[in-house]
């Protein structure tokens, strides 16, 4: 069984530090921003632009860490490490983790 997409301790710490209402706004911003980052990541892979690809993967990783989205952060970390040669399947895995994380985050944020 795969681990939970969100580390609830990290997410609760974020809510405690930044405020639960603010985290709702933050999750909504991530839901808007992340698909654009994925499009740019695919574009960087196609262009073999290693620097841009690694920066985008790192951004998704750091956003994932900020929300406690551990599986998303791990998938992004792998891509950051592998670079544009990671392949279409690895990028598709990241996209799937992103969708799962976003759904879980929106549920958790609304629970407060």
């Amino acid at each position, binding site marked *: 069984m795969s681990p939970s997409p969100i580390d609830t301790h990290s997410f609760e710490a974020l809510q405690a530090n*930044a405020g639960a209402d603010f985290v709702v706004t*933050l999750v909504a*911003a991530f839901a808007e921003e992340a698909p654009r980052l994925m499009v740019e990541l695919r574009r960087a892979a196609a262009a073999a632009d290693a620097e841009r690809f*690694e920066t985008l993967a*790192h*951004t998704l*990783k*750091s*956003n994932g*860490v900020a929300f406690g989205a551990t599986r998303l952060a791990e998938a992004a970390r792998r891509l950051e490490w592998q670079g544009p040669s990671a392949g279409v399947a690895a990028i598709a895995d990241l996209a799937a983790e992103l969708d799962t994380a976003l759904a879980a985050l929106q549920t958790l944020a609304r629970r407060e």
Partner: protein
Amino acid sequence: MSVQPTALVFGHIELRLAERQLLVHGEPVALGSRGFDLLKALVGKRDRVVGKDELLDEVWPGLVVEENNLQVQISGLRRVLGARAISTVAGLGYRFTLAPGTVEPPRLPGVPPQPAAAQAKARVLVADDNRVNRLLLCRSLELMGHQVSSADNGRQALELLRRQPFELLLLDLAMPELDGFGLLQVRADDAELREVAVIVTSALGGVAPVARCIELGADDFLHKPVDPWLLKARVESSLARKQHRDLQSEALRRLTPGGPAEPSRLADACVLVARLHEPQRSQQTPTDLMELLNSWGTLMFDAIEGRAGEVAQFNGDGLLALFAEPRAAAQAGRDMLELVELFNGQRHAEGQAAIALGIGIARGELIAGSAATARRAAYACVGAPVLSAEQLALACARGGHGLLMDALTRSGLPADMGAAVVNLSPEWVAYRSIQGRA
């Protein structure tokens, strides 16, 4: 019926008149009876400069007391309240400068004192093209009490920096239009932008980007994701360093009418160099030593500013001050020695070792102005009298506590100040303000 307030609040301090008690940041502070009376007098007359004679009459009624006792008490209050709480107005007296708060209502038994007002807000700009990072950084800074603006690319950040005053910039590197490196490069070539402290927050890995940012003048670097506790510590540290730089710049602005960026030739100035002789010998711990240097520095600044001098350089156990004419420099030197004597008396009573001070005064032409690189600026004083004053101050180490001046300074003193002059060499003379002290 009007009721006299029993507690006066000024920012971080509270003066409880009935209990004769001072609280700083909500904590009681031990203050001697004279110190309390002096503070009360200054607070009561805070709408004006209070003359030294008036304060002496009020704090030591019916007694003939030397003025230096007042300076020691003022210095003690500044150590407790902060250096800016009481300003010295050269030749006139002192003024209490803290803005009044409201009179605190009576406190209920068992209710602890509230913490003092939060640290002053800083104006911070966050430049980051990632919306989540930007929102999170802005939120963290707002919760720290700062006033936050944001930009989503380097060009927009630059426009904001040129339009509005900011104390701190949190700068992402990989941004559209103008990236963080580009903005740092623009800042490095712009004196006004260099006044804004910069912390780089970046997802770029490795040491190379960090090194490049530091080379371009960034104050600090944080890797993303940014830990909120680390962010708080780095922001406070950067703002504290900036505040320190601003205070130095302000002192330089006062010193040089044309501003610190404009070098000036001072055709006939007196340079006073004061140096403590090995102060670490008399201290047990680094904290003790720093406390000693704080106290010593406060007293010396008082003596110099009280004689219309300006401290141009201060490095902990030594300082360099400039005076327009020899008499003021010699009077300040004498005051400094006498203050250290009083200070040593206080230390002796507390079982602490005495400190020894060497002062050199030399007169002549010098060049003063800002010497700066992209990362650091200092007020430079260059010329023969600077070297002579430094040598004279060091020479005092051989003879112990005292003051040496060059012959040109001596020639500018009135006859009544020459009674205790001892010739050491054809060029140097020693001035002893306290009889019988070697």
